[in-house]
């Protein structure tokens, strides 16, 4: 059992939990994730380890309420326990001194980006962070990113805060600079990552994306998470979650994410009604 030691609401739909998991806190590296489960027959869902405190034995999870499990998770209180937390899973980020690293976080993608940004900064890179969201209330981890970044660009789709732009706008400007960033790490909704990769491709700027696909075990046994990367089949859970964004077949990945759509929409709708969250268009 993993006790929740702290719970914070970061935006209307996004929560941050600090959870007791001493072994995972000690072993995890940036880029890795956990699988959690709220009961024996509950769904297993992957969540990025957004941060960890090995001394206290805690890990930080940031999640958006998108389905039944995240809804139930949002209802847990400090002191409650999560029965199953398996991890750390996945191949850690390749952290090195690249020169200038631009981290692009869209919406909830800021959460997986944060530990990578932390590690890239610590490795001696100049760090540019582009943070975007549909609107101001959905922007998360802005303060945390500001303390890390050498340069920070915030944008919203509707212009309610920062620049009125999609993240691809500032990203393109960064790529047009001389010199362009040595590495781009783009994390967010699949369609955002797809267009980030398309933005950097003509500039030849290396672009890493972190994929969040359907998983059951998270240890390489089911293959539900498989994606096509450079024409080869890869498992996000063990080969990833990070891949060369220029090689990922995003259209295939997005259709695979909709595998169980009917069932998910049903529960998503019910959950949002229960939490009082308004449906987006």
């Amino acid at each position, binding site marked *: 059992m993993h006790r929740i030691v702290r719970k914070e609401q970061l935006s209307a739909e996004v929560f941050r939990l600090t959870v007791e998991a001493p072994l995972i806190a000690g072993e995890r590296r940036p880029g890795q994730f956990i699988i959690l489960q709220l009961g024996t027959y509950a769904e297993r869902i992957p969540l990025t380890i957004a941060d960890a405190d090995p001394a206290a034995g805690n890990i930080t999870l940031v999640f958006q309420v998108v389905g039944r*499990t995240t809804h139930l998770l949002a209802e847990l209180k400090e002191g409650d326990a999560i029965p199953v937390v398996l*991890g750390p899973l996945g191949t850690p980020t390749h952290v090195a001194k690249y020169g200038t690293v631009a981290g692009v976080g869209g919406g909830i993608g800021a959460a997986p980006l944060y530990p990578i940004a932390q590690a890239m900064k610590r490795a001696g890179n100049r760090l540019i962070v582009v943070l975007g969201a549909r609107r101001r209330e959905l922007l998360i981890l802005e303060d945390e990113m500001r303390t890390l970044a050498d340069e920070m660009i915030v944008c919203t789709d509707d212009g309610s805060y920062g620049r009125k732009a999609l993240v691809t706008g500032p990203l393109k400007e960064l790529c047009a600079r001389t010199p362009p960033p040595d590495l781009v790490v783009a994390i967010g909704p699949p369609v955002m990552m797809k267009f980030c990769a398309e933005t950097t491709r003509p500039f030849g700027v290396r672009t890493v994306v972190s994929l969040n696909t359907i998983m059951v075990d998270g240890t*390489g046994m089911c*293959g539900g998470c498989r994606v096509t990367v450079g024409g080869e089949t890869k498992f996000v859970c063990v080969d990833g979650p990070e891949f060369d964004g220029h090689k990922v077949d995003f259209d295939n990945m997005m*259709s695979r994410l*909709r595998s169980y759509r009917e069932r998910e929409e049903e529960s998503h709708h019910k959950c949002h009604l229960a939490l009082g969250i308004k449906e987006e268009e």
Partner: protein
Amino acid sequence: MAQPAQKENPSTAGLRPRDRLAIPPQPMPEQDPAARRRNFSEVALGYTAEQARQEATRCLRCRNKPCVAGCPVRIDIPAFIKAVAEGDCGAAIAVIKRNSLLPAICGRVCPQETQCQAPCTVGKSLKDTAKSVSIGRLERYVADLERARGIAPPPVKPDTGRRVAVVGSGPAGLVAAADVRREGHAVTIFEAFHKPGGVMVYGIPEFRLPKAIVQAEIDTLAAMGVELRTSFLVGRTRTLRDLMAKDGYEAVFVGAGAGLPRFMGVEGENLVGVLSANEYLTRVNLMGACNPVTADTPVMRSRRVAVVGGGNVAMDAARTAVRLGAESVHVVYRRTEAEMPARIEEVHHAHEEGVVFRLLQNPKRIVGGADGRVTGMECLRYRLGEPDRSGRPRPVAIEGSEFMLDVDTVIVAIGNAPNPLIKRTTAELKTNEWGGLLVDDKGMTSMPGVFAGGDIVLGSATVIEAMGQGRVAAAAINEYLEEKG
């Protein structure tokens, strides 16, 4: 050996071989095929006491005991069968347990027709191995009786203060854990899933192996004092090296299984609606997706299903699809039924349940619609050619024989490779070309103190072979600890 509590029925004790051969083989009572298409309850219902006695009486008690040589763990089969014929199931179970820890499981899932029952003298005399003594059914019968009475945990020697880690709680790990624990060593089993049992829980369906039976065996281990840590992935949650260097485990048994699903490498394999049998079965068995009321994990609601492969896993997936309400389920296999690696009984059950066998056919590509979902599978017809390296006739594609199979789901059941994670996170471990851990004849890997067995060594094998390796490695671990002092 335990003494029979009661003499054999005088009317059968003096039977001549000819009389024994005249006793008809006892059929296994089974759920009606039409009824079981709609439920996940066990298909085989088990012998009655009278059936068990009758079947046991068929054994000729021949001197050369070819059945024992056919058993991977060398159970003294005629001795246990004699005890059943004498009505002494306590003695029967005692005989079995000298060699096998999990008879209720093996009695159900062992391929007896290619092991102990293949060379049976009764079958040979009647010129039909299907008429051999039903050793597996008798094993199951006595094991079920034992479980109903409460399994007595084997005696455990006084604590030695030594610690041994077992990675994986499948058949190899459970047996290794029990055998090491018996010597008084402290044993911790590390399991990546939230429930123990390995392939017996996530892979083999309830209708073939009820989960309560696996749980009873795990409970026995717990009663022996074996510690179980679930949701713990050795290699990630803790490295193998740290378990030994920092956590005080002096020896490790790796029984992490063959969990890496193989795919075919054909066009369209990543379309929505194509899944590994591992994924399909795990969703249904481990995550309970067969009951959407109690489970959150969804499973494909398929109409027309193709299962590619001819092994037990393919049969399990096909029969699961039937039970989930698919209108038609096709097993697509590139050889003929005679070459299928699946147990005859499973193939027979699949036929009875309405699974369509498309033999000498194999997928060429999978096609999908604009939404990325499967709409069909293009197949080629095959013929049998010259024997290949495995001795089976090589399937040869017939050019220009393409045809389209109208399916919305394709389940790939062409085998699994050894779990790569332990190897990836432990550079010291040497592997063969298939990714299996290399071990010596005692089960020790290239890393001192680290032993391995089961599918992580063998690739895809059987429960009983895994158990056999777990037992060999456990004996070697006990010896290793003694020598180490």
